[in-house]
Every structure is written in structure tokens, then in C-alpha cells.
């Protein structure tokens, strides 16, 4: 059965799906993440990644960064629904290809193997600000910060160096320049 938002609309038009990074400033109170995430799941929208932490201790404001895909209409609906939530202060929406915004994700890689492989792995990460967080004779834990697709690529490329475990965060975003999002 074709996808439909309403019982009647068997829309034949294929609309373009874009990746959007939605940033939500919320009161850091119990259940607030469930409210935000529930809006997505309740409407059948998917979340690609999620990052959330308190950013203002005094005002108890948390910043939630959500990466999602959808048609312009769906993304617009998400934004408007988010703005209706009582603990939500403001909502920003950036397209992934937006040049005026910086997106970053962090990943931790655990490599297990002989010395030459460990070194090879570290070398391969060179472009992505690698930090060696832990080192033993047999293993390394490397931290990198990069874009999603770069981390995707590294997760593949490092396999040959003995990658055994990957842990990664969701994307966080910040506008370039002196302006902040109001």
C-alpha cells in the first residue's frame, strides 16, 4: 500500500526527501526528551541521530540536536509541532548542505592488533583530529571528530586495522560567524 498521510491521499507525486538538522532549546525537565522524540515517532518520522545536553545551568536549558529526513511539508510540520510544546523555547532548522552552519559528530574507535596496525589506524584518522585516549600493547582507543559520512567511511576503512568497537554521538550544530540563532 502506498504511503499516505491522510486516509484519502494516495499521492502519486514523489516529493524530495532532504536531510535536516533540527535544533530545539527546551527546559531541562523530566520527560522533555520523550515529548520531543514522541512527536517524531507518533507521526512515523524517523530520527537519524540525536544529541542532547544541558547548555545553560542557571536557566536549566537543554539543547537537543536532531538529524531527520523528510519532505519539506513533513519537516515544516515537525517544526510547527515542536514549537507548540510547552517546554520548547525555540526551534532552528538547518539543511545538511547549509554552508553557514558547522555540523560535527564524535566517534570512539577501539583497535585491537599488532603495533603496525595500531599505527596504521592512527595514521588513517589523521584528517579528523585524532586523539589517542587509551593505549596498551595490543590496543588503542582513538577519538575523532568529523562529519557523519566521514565517520561512516572511517568505520569501514578501519576494519582492516583491527577495529573491534565503534561508539559515536549524534551531530551537534553551530552557526558560523558572530550571529547566534534567535
Amino acid at each position: 500500500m502506498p504511503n499516505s498521510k491522510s486516509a484519502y491521499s494516495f499521492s502519486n507525486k514523489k516529493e524530495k526527501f532532504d536531510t535536516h538538522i533540527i535544533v530545539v532549546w527546551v527546559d531541562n525537565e523530566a520527560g522533555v526528551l520523550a515529548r520531543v522524540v514522541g512527536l517524531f515517532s507518533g507521526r512515523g518520522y524517523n530520527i537519524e541521530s540525536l544529541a542532547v545536553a544541558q547548555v545553560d545551568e542557571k536557566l536549566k536549558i537543554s539543547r537537543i540536536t536532531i538529524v531527520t529526513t523528510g519532505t519539506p511539508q513533513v519537516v515544516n510540520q515537525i517544526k510547527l509541532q515542536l514549537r507548540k510544546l510547552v517546554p520548547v523555547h525555540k526551534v532552528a532548522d538547518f539543511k545538511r548542505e547549509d554552508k553557514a552552519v558547522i555540523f560535527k559528530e564524535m566517534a570512539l574507535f577501539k583497535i585491537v592488533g599488532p603495533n603496525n596496525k595500531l599505527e596504521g589506524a592512527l595514521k588513517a584518522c589523521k584528517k579528523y583530529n585524532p586523539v589517542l585516549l587509551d593505549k596498551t600493547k595490543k590496543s588503542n582507543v582513538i577519538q575523532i571528530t568529523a562529519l557523519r559520512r566521514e565517520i561512516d567511511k572511517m568505520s569501514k576503512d578501519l576494519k582492516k586495522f583491527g577495529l573491534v568497537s565503534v561508539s559515536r554521538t549524534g551531530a551537534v550544530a553551530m552557526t558560523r560567524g558572530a550571529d547566534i540563532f534567535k
Partner: protein
Amino acid sequence: MSKLYSGAEIVFKCMEDQSVDHIFGYPGGAVLPIYDELQNFKSIKHVLVRHEQGAGHAAEGYARSSGKPGVILVTSGPGATNVVTALTDAYMDSIPLVCISGQVPTHLIGTDAFQECDTTGITRPCTKHNWLVKDVNDLASTIHKAFEVATTGRPGPVLVDIPKDIQFQKTKYKKPKKEKKLNGKSHNHFNQNSIDHLIDLMSKSSKPIFYTGGGVINSGPKASELLRELVYATGFPITSTLQGLGSFPGDDNQFLGMLGMHGTYEANNAMHDCDLMINIGARFDDRITGKIDEFSPKSKKVHIDIDPSSINKNVKVDLAIVGDVKTVLSSTLKSLKQKKSKFLKSNKQKTSKWWEKIQKWRSVRSLDYIGSEETIKPQYAIERLYELTKDKDSYITTEVGQHQMWAAQHYKFNKPNRWMTSGGLGTMGYGLPAAVGVQVAHPKKLVIDIAGEASVLMTIQEMSTAVQYNLPIKIFILNNQYMGMVRQWQELLHDKNYSESYTAALPDFVKLAEAYNCVGIRAKTPEELDDKIIEMLNTDRPVIFDCMVDKVENCFPMIPSGKPHNQMILGPKDQENKKITGKGKSLV
């Protein structure tokens, strides 16, 4: 030092300050401290229901007929889960409710304690907002905030979950703050340019139509007055959704009747062919639009709504005006008077062809049915009920199904807040408890629940509530022994396979009425119908009226699923030509 109050007392102090006079509820372990305090607050009357769903719908009926928020008090666990249907119903139809629920003591939360459930988790998607109060010092401000959230902007239900230990703890009471701004969420976002744009569109249009909804009712009686003024000042035709009935007089010549799946031929065709559609407080629901790709293809669309997320949700519009209906209408009227004082005159010519077309559609008389002298036709029953009650300023509630659509088609409403029906969620069992709530708000008025025999059995226990509080509600059952709308769809879409839609063992409703200690009346023939209705109206006690109607009557006109507005099925004679095939069958 100011006096210390227990959490339970604070609940009622808040209600006093919020001018609550009635609450609908059911006691239980986790709200006992609150029930203990009830007797000390004389201005607040508690209505004891028989099931928490009934409390919810009664509060909805109360809210819709009075314009004030409905207040519910239930216990933890099953008390809270039972009220979920009513909260969802209120959420869909934008009805302000404040539900106070008890919760197990804070130290037991998360231990699977007796009658524990994650109430805020369960009700999160069906409330505007909810709170679990974990500190008694937050209780008063939370309840005041709850009333504010429920009643401002697009109204809706909220829930405050109060653990039992919080109800015992003591603190100072805080009065409501006079805070206007809700987290920066103001509700009027339009400017004069939009109003000017609207007036410009109106003056250019030769085939205009107003399409109005429940937002007009929710905006208060003044909004209905302004709507009438605007409709008369423009001479435009107007149609209404199910929820909007009553905001414009149902017997006025400019009114085309209800639109949508069971709307009139003239309303739906006018929506399809218009060149300007002005949506006031409606939401392009799927029962209204029919096939969305072919919905009103040639019109400019204007959408006036208080909820920004309603704009462009289902249908893209050319002009969006986000604001309270009352405020928008009053600005529009003001500008119209200033700029186009002779609008009506200049426009009469322009829209005369349009009106001719509408008259032609009207002459189809799409609400007609084939009468009978032997059996009571359900439409006839509603018509007679209307004729015999139209001078009484009556309040009508309904259940959900064929009887609901017949009531909407054949009962004419002239005032707002007189029509209470479950539209968005379509909750069978809504009407009886809603009638209880309406009668509580309007003790002297005539309150009728137009019901079906299947729906009414879902909440029939609330008759006991009506009897206990001497609420003389009239339950007018159109009894066809079928789940009529299910049967109709099975006839039209499922090759007459009447799977499980016949109730083989119905109670004797007259005896049932007697068992509840109210009055039972039965009408079997068209001949005796009027006398029996008059008997019902003359009874100053709750009545169950068992109106035995034609078992296989269908509700027409009807837009079959998957069809646009201009392809309606009109009635028995028309059906042969318009079989529902293919995709339409799989739609709801």
C-alpha cells in the same frame, strides 16, 4: 507566617481561584486525601460518575456547552487509563479539560506498586501537556499553569498527576500569577496586510464560499456574532463542518448545510467549484476534503486558524492568517467597513451566477429520503424531534455513527455551544456522559442525546449518574439493531457481508430505563412518534426513548472514499451508477 495547606487542600484552593464549580470524578486509593478535603470546599460540587471515561466525556460536554474548562478527578492506574479515551477525544476536538489524577506515593513510583501506571507517559500523546508533581511546593503553580495551557491558544486537555504523599505534605498556597505570555507563545500573528489581502481576494471573487469549523465555537459566542455579521455583509454562501454547526444559523438561506463525507450536495459542489475558499477555524480534515489531490482544484484558499501547525498540514493555502477567530473577524469587518462600505451591493451582481448555480444544486434536495407509513425512518424521527424542540433552546449531544450524521443533517442549530459531538476521534459512547455534563452546566435546559443503540450501550452506566443528580437528560435512541454505519459500509464496500454488525441480544431499553429508576418510552410507528416525543419532553426526569427505526436505512448523501467532492452518491436511486471500486475500498 502564612498558613500551611496540604497538597489536597491546595488542589481545591486552586480550583476555587480558577472559578471551578463542578468536577467530575471517581474516588480511589491514590486520591483519597483529595476526596477527604472535598467537604471543606462548598463552592465546588463533585459529580460522581460510574466509570472514568464517563467523567471525561461529561467534562467535555460541560466545557463545550459552557465555554469553561471541564475538570476531572480520578485515581491512579485504572482510573487514569480509563480516562485516556476522553482525553484523546478532547485533544482531537480541541476541548479544554483539566484532569487531576492520583499517583502512588513518590517512593513507590517505578516499583510496579498497586494501581501504579506511568500516567504521564500514557497521556503524553493525548494531552497538550502534562505534569507529574514531585514537590508540593510546585503544586499550586503547576495546577494554575495547567488551567492556562488548557484554555489558551488552541484549547485542549491537560493532566496533572499528583502522588499520594504530595497530597498529604504541607506548604504555603500560591495564587495564580497574572502572566499573559506563555513561553513566548502568543496567538495572534497576523498583520493588517493579511487582512487587506483577504479583503482584496473577497472583492475579486465571483464564486466565494466560507468554510467554517469548531474554531469559531471555541473562540467564544462573540466570534459567532462576528461571523454572522461578516457573512451578511458579504452575501457569500457559507458551509460548516460537523464541529462548527451552530456558529451560523442552520435555517438561514445563505447556509448551505454541512459539508464533507455526509454533507449536502450544494455544500460539497460549492467547495469543489469555488474560486475563493475562506476557511475559518477548520482544519481540512480528511472527512471534509475527500480525495485530497482533487480537492477544490480551482480556488484560492485562505486559512484562518489559531494553531500555526494546522496551516498547510493537509492542504496548501494561498493566504494564512494565524490568530484567534474573533480577533481576525473583527479586524476584517473593521477594514471591510472602512474600505468597501458598499461591498454587499457591488458584489451581489458578481456572485449572482454563483448563487444561481448553488440554487440548482440545492434543487437536488440531497437530504431527501423515501418516507414510510409503516416504519419510522430515522431521518423522520430527527425531523420531528427538531420540529417539536426548536423553540426550546435545546442542547444536543450524539454518539457516533449514522444517527450522528442524520442529527447533523436534519437538526438545525441556531446558536453556538448547543451541539456536542465527537468528531475527530469518533468515540462511540460519548453522547450520554456528555449530556450529563451539559445538564450539569445548564440545569434548566432541555438536553437530548441523539443516540444509536450500539453506541449508547458503551456508557449506559452513566444513566445511574443522571438519576443520582436529578439530571433530566433525554436519551433518544434511533434503534435499528445494527451498528448502522458499519452495516452501511459493509453493504456498499464489502459485498453485503454483515460481519458482526448486528446486535442479536439487545436489552429491552424501556425495562432498562425502569431498572435505572428513570423513564422508558418506546415508539414503533410514525403515527405515534409525535405523541411519544411530547411525552418525553413533558417528563421532568431522565428518559430513555427507544425509537424503533428502519433497520436498513443508509445515510446519504455520501462521498465514497477516494472520490472528490463532486462525485457524491445521492440516495438509493443513484447508487447503481456509482459503484465504489478499486482503491476506494481500502480506505477508511
